[in-house]
Structure formats: structure tokens, C-alpha cells
């Protein structure tokens, strides 16, 4: 845990909703004017939102940053419960309290490795941001149950990344889990490249990426999704079991030491 001369330049600020549009199925894209947060966000970091009109709820909701420029921060979110349902009702001009940027994002992509992004569901959000800030281009694997949950294909393509899609019901791209597509690709390419994984999605998917990275002795950076309280490192709600290099295990705060961890740090199933 840090004890340094304070933190990461997190601010508590009022964002003004600049736009809020459908992004297909239950997904929506929400843009905030928030010039005190926007310029400092790194890919993989998140913002913690106080959702308006959620009056008997006492917690904020965390969302990865999907895009950021000098003045605006954008998130891409899926409606899954009360909070995101209420979020889907906010309208342009409305003010939303933002806490951010928060967490430790993805490391810079190394030029000697080929970045391989693996995304499930809204896991594309931080990876689009990463792709947009990465000097090196690589390949993106997007896995989903069906076509409706495959997002941002064009976005990645416009940025010059190769996109491979796998859906479990076969409604788009290859049929099956994303790992099937990934494994096939790895089998073809592994002799020629050093992949470095950047993944965000359900735990099962992250674990599968981790297994492959460890097997191949490659790096894999995983962005975890844990239910959060404060988002600031104070409440110890969001912990993930991690192992230090010396083998000792402890709890890491996903909001502070994470949400991105190198896969070798993670102790699964605790």
C-alpha cells in the first residue's frame, strides 16, 4: 500500500453530460465534459460515478474510460441492474459527480511485442482506449455470447487493428469461445511473434488468457471487475488475492493496485 506524498491526481468533480447515445442492444455511450479529469486518464483507468436519482443507493458505480480527449471522458456501458438502469436515464446537460481518474491502468505497449487484446462484453471499453493510445498495432479478439454483445469492431479497424470475433451461438465470426479463435491464431503465429496480452472481460476469460500466457511465457495484463465501495483504496471491499514475487499471498485493492494486474500476480478462486 502506498504511503507516498498522496496519490494519483484523482479529483472529485462535476461532469456535464455532453451526449448519451445507444450503442446497440443494452449498451450506451455516455460522454462527459470534465476537463479536470479527461487529460490525465490512462488506458485501463476508471471513473467512479454517482448516479443521479438513485436515492436509496449509497454507492457509486465504476466504469472504465472508453475514450478521453482534452475536455471529455466517454464510457461505454451495459445496463445490468438498478444503477446502470438509472444511468441510462441521464440526459445531456445533466450534472454527474465523477471521481477519477482511478486505479492503475495498462502498462505502455512494448515495441518488441505484438499487442493482443482480448475482450468480452463491455471489456472492449478500456481496450479501445488502449488501442487508440498505442503506437504499435496488433490484433483484437472479441468474444461474446451472440452478435449483440460484440462491440467496437469498426472502431478497432479504423485504428488499424486486426479484429477477430467469436460468438458462442455463431451469430457473428467464428463459433465458440474466444479462446478457440485465440488458440488457432496462436498456433499459427507463435513462431514469428512475441504476443503481449491485454484483456478485459469475465473472470473465466481472463483465466483462460492467463493460462495461455503462462504456458507461452508471455506477459498478460488483465483488467479485473470487482464490486467496489469507495474506489479510492479506503474501504477494502474490492480485494483480489495476489501473490508477490516471494510467493507470499495478500489482498490487493482492485481500485488502487488494480484494476490491471499481470496475470502471474493473480491467485484465482479465492
Amino acid at each position: 500500500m502506498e504511503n507516498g506524498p498522496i496519490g494519483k491526481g484523482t479529483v472529485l468533480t462535476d461532469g456535464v453530460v455532453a451526449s448519451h447515445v445507444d450503442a446497440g442492444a443494452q449498451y450506451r455511450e455516455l460522454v462527459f465534459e470534465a476537463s479536470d479529469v479527461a487529460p490525465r486518464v490512462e488506458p485501463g483507468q476508471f471513473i467512479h460515478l454517482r448516479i443521479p436519482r438513485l436515492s436509496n443507493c449509497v454507492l457509486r458505480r465504476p466504469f472504465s474510460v472508453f475514450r478521453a480527449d482534452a475536455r471529455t471522458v466517454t464510457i461505454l456501458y451495459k445496463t445490468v441492474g438498478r444503477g446502470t438502469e438509472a444511468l441510462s436515464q441521464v440526459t445531456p446537460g445533466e450534472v454527474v459527480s465523477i471521481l477519477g481518474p482511478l486505479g492503475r491502468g495498462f502498462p505502455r505497449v512494448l515495441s518488441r511485442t505484438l499487442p493482443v487484446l482480448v475482450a468480452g462484453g463491455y471489456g472492449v471499453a478500456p481496450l479501445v482506449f488502449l488501442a487508440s493510445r498505442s503506437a504499435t498495432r496488433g490484433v483484437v479478439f472479441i468474444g461474446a455470447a451472440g452478435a449483440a454483445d460484440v462491440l467496437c469492431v469498426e472502431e478497432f479497424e479504423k485504428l488499424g487493428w486486426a479484429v477477430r470475433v467469436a460468438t458462442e451461438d455463431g451469430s457473428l465470426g467464428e463459433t465458440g469461445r474466444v479462446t478457440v479463435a485465440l488458440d488457432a491464431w496462436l498456433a499459427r503465429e507463435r513462431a514469428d511473434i512475441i504476443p503481449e496480452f491485454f484483456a478485459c472481460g469475465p473472470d473465466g476469460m481472463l483465466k483462460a488468457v492467463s493460462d495461455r500466457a503462462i504456458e507461452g511465457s508471455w506477459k498478460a495484463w488483465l483488467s479485473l471487475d470487482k464490486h467496489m465501495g469507495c474506489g479510492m483504496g479506503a474501504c477494502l471491499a474490492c480485494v483480489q488475492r495476489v501473490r508477490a514475487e516471494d510467493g507470499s499471498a495478500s489482498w490487493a485493492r482492485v481500485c488502487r493496485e488494480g484494476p490491471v494486474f499481470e496475470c502471474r500476480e493473480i491467485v484465482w478462486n479465492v
Partner: protein
Amino acid sequence: MTSQMQKSPDLSVELGAIRMKNPVMTASGTFGYGPEFADVVDLNRLGAIVVKGLRMGPWDGNRPPRMVEVRGGLLNAIGLQGPGVEGFIREYLPFLRRFDVPVIVNIWGRTMEEYGEVAARLDDAEGVHGIEMNISCPNIKEGGIAFGADPATAAEAMRCVRQRTSKPVIPKLPPNVPNIAAFARAAEESGCDAVSLINTIPAMAIDIETRRPILANRVGGLSGPAIHPVAVKLVWEAAQAVRIPVIGMGGIETAGDAIEFLIAGASAVAVGTANFSDPATPLRVVDGIADYLRRHGMASVRELIGSIQP
């Protein structure tokens, strides 16, 4: 308007030897050890900082899930994870000493002796202004709640701590007892300097699809606005029972919530869960109390404390 009303009202209060600029502190476990919120909250404007509970050595706490939101509040079962008193003194106390704000260390132990040991270790720690004794944590079997089961056991734990430190000692009382006055009197008679209340109320949430408790620890503690009226009632009773100061907490979101505690007899208040949704809450409450005093022509917050009308 009198000139008194135009002047800034005096917000300072004293809890035994702890002198506070204003009566608003942070509640243990909701504000970390100081640095966590320092980016967004001016620590110097707080009445006091109460840090997360510490025992002698490091403690791992419970498995996750550790927190779940419920209507009007949340349940937590962190299980007192922490670096231990040594870890705190080494890693956090130097940071805290840079601020002009009293630091109160919340402690717990698995045995009466451990409470005493932690207190003794803190006794000569520079920059520690007081010790809050958690005898009411619902989240771990070993710690706290067993010592808060009845006033006699609580008194014994209080004496263990009292004997080992000359710093102000503040037992944190349990909320789920029918006789809070007896606990408060036990604190007073054991020579403690103040009491604080309430801790979270033991509670549980079940996922009806899996039929499992949502928290890994099964039970947790309820905090947030849901418990505010329960806390006001217990604070009112405790304040009537003793002459030592009472610190009121539970569900404070607005200055009005804090003012209820002050009127009921609390000399100070603590903001817990509300830090999560709005880290500016403690400072907003400080400003709101000042506004209230101005509007009511009170020169000092001490006029408000215990001013409940029959």
C-alpha cells in the same frame, strides 16, 4: 441581526484531551489510514481522522465478497484487514503527522491482553491523539463483538486498555443491545474519556438465486442512512447516562443528520458510509453546521450539543 450572528461561529470541541477544530470526524474503516482520500479531501479541515481498525500484527480479513449494497445502506464484512499497529506506525503515521488534525487510532484484539498491548504500543507513538476501542465489530468472531456482549465484559476490556495508555480512550459501543446506558456507564467508570457509537448493525443478505449469503462471511454490518434513526436514539440514551463526551455516528449524509446527533447530546460526529458516495461529505457537514449556527444565532457549537427540548 446581531454582530454575533455575523461572526463565524466557534466550531471547536474537546473530547477529553483531544482538541478538535470542528466536531466532524471520519468513521473508522471508511477513510483508510489517511492518504487514500487526501487527493480529494483537505485533511486539515477535518475535526479528526479515525483510521481503520488495527490489531497487534497484520490481519488478512475475510474473503470477498465483502460488501453489498442494500436499500438505504450497505452491508460490509471486511473482517478488519490491516497492516497491524507496527505497520501503521511505519507506513502511515509519518504521513498523518504532516497534517494539523488529530489522529484517532481504532484498535481491536483477539484477546483482552491484545487490546492492552496495542494500546501500550500506541501510547508513545507521536501523532496519535486518541484510541478508539472497537468492541462491537460484527464481522469477525475473534475480535470485538465478544467483548461487547455485556457491560461487565466490556468494562474489563476497557480497563485493560485504560491501564496501558495515558492517551484518551474511546470505547466504540455495540448497537444491538437493549441497555446502551449500562455500556456507556461502564466506559465512564473504567476511566475512559469518551464513547463512540454506533458501529454497524449485524445483518445479512441472501442471493435468492444461489440461496447463498451474498457476503463470504455470511453476516455483515449494516451502515448508512438506514441506521440513522437507530443511532440517534442510542446516542441520546448514552448521552443522558454519562458525563463523558459521546461521539455520534451512523448514516450521516447531510449536516442535518449530524445536527440531530449534536442536539441529542453528541459532542462530535463521524461520517462513514457517505464518504463512499460523496467524499466531500465531512466538509459539507462542517459547513452546514456553521450555517445552522449562524441562522440560529448561536456563537458556538457547544450551545447546540445536548440542546434537545423536552
